[in-house]
């Protein structure tokens, strides 16, 4: 959920900018190093960013007809790590604010934190833990993407509740925002998880070189997965 332009009052929007800044700086540092090592990384990162933009501006099939969309950044974090995913998230969110009026400039810091940092970090950690534990790859991707989506909405609720505690106090306001966003989001998070897992499956079947070259899956895992599918 993007927080809209003008919705967060001072000092909250400044605070979220400050919180997001170090992640972006580390991301830029990693990005610089990556680009110097492998020149081909830049165009590939760019297409990944554009993919996240397009995916998150398409509407997911949803039952309740609510206007929701996948965050898509979970995939970016699994592929490139959480810090570079934060930089991609920043770029995508600026374009979404300007082209689609989703989000805004002053709320950029808060949105980068919820969608570009918190969600992707969760996806990345779950994916790492899952592969290390030897869990089923698709199940890991499913859980990682679904939880990343949910975490994004929980963080958004926290941000809104901190800015507008009302008379109910932080916890009361949080449960009100979380009830509206997170509860309608649970089925959508599950769908997003399923969709991203399907994306992974297509990549493994059709172009596994992408995954092996990024050191995400070893050749033997890919062979095993393709055999299982065949």
């Amino acid at each position, binding site marked *: 959920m993007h927080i809209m332009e*003008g919705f967060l009052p001072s000092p909250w929007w400044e605070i979220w900018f400050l919180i997001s800044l170090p992640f972006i700086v580390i991301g830029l540092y990693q990005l610089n190093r990556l680009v110097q090592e492998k020149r081909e990384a830049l165009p590939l990162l760019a297409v990944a960013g554009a993919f996240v933009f397009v*995916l998150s501006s398409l509407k997911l099939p949803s039952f309740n007809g609510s206007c929701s969309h996948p965050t898509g950044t979970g995939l970016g974090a699994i592929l490139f790590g959480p810090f570079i995913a934060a930089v991609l998230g920043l770029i995508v969110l600026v374009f979404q604010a300007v082209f689609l009026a989703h989000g805004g400039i002053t709320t950029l810091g808060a949105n980068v934190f919820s969608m570009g940092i918190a969600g992707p970090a969760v996806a990345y950690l779950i994916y790492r833990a899952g592969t290390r534990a030897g869990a089923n790859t698709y199940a890991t991707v499913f859980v990682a993407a679904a939880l990343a989506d949910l975490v994004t909405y929980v963080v958004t609720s926290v941000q809104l509740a901190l800015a*507008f505690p*009302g008379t109910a106090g932080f916890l009361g306001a949080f449960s*009100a925002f979380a009830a509206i966003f997170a509860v309608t989001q649970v089925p959508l998070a599950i769908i997003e998880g*399923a969709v991203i897992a399907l994306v992974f*499956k*297509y990549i493994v079947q059709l172009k596994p070189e992408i995954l092996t070259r990024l050191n995400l899956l070893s050749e033997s895992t890919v062979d095993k997965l393709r055999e299982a599918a065949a």
Partner: protein
Amino acid sequence: MYEVLEDFAQTNRLRETSPGLKLFLGLSSILLCVSSPGPVAPLLVAATMSAAILALAKIPARFYARLLLVPVSFAVMSIAVVLFITGSGAVLFEVPGLPLAITAGGANLALLLLARVFGGMCSLYFIALTTPMTEVFDILRRLRVPAVLIDLAMLTYRFIFILIEEAGQIYRSQVMRLGYGRFRESVRSFGMLAGALFIRTWESGEALVLAMDARCYDGRLGIPGEARPVSALALATTLLYLGAVFGVSLSTGGLVII
């Protein structure tokens, strides 16, 4: 919709005005809206920005009205929550059977937020409709934003348009084959769409690497920037306008509607 927005940015009547000035005006208006303590100044910004978009930049009114409707559903949901959880002052309305009530304090806060969102949105559209992205990149470069970030943003921007086209084609052919008939099918089709899109994207990225290498890409993209001087009159008008909005924001800050 996206291409149309960018088309207007390239052809509108304010195209030749200095991009730095337009960006400065838009961003300052957003800041004034967010920091305004009362709803009058943001509404003034919304009105003047819309006037500038329609009268000065000559964007068709019907198209602009459709743009303004895009974020409405997002706004209504969040503002409804604020309306109900903020309780101070006289109770204006109670929901029968539920512990929910609208108070004067909540209504004022909701109104203020609505005005800020509306003002910010119009300022954002002012930038989007009058300033092409390529010129924004040029300004960012002059502001010493890291080159790698600008290059990445430019390439991402380029690919967004290509991908939207492809996603649309895949989606239409899926719909024609009844791919979104039932819920199960929709999820499967959507996954297929995203998967196919990702692989095609990646392939076009690899093709781009080849094309750039063939043209001696050395890790830096160059864009020729043409400096358009800011006219003194335009700068003075902008500063006068921003000063006026700031004055209105200060003098109507304590104004309470309800």
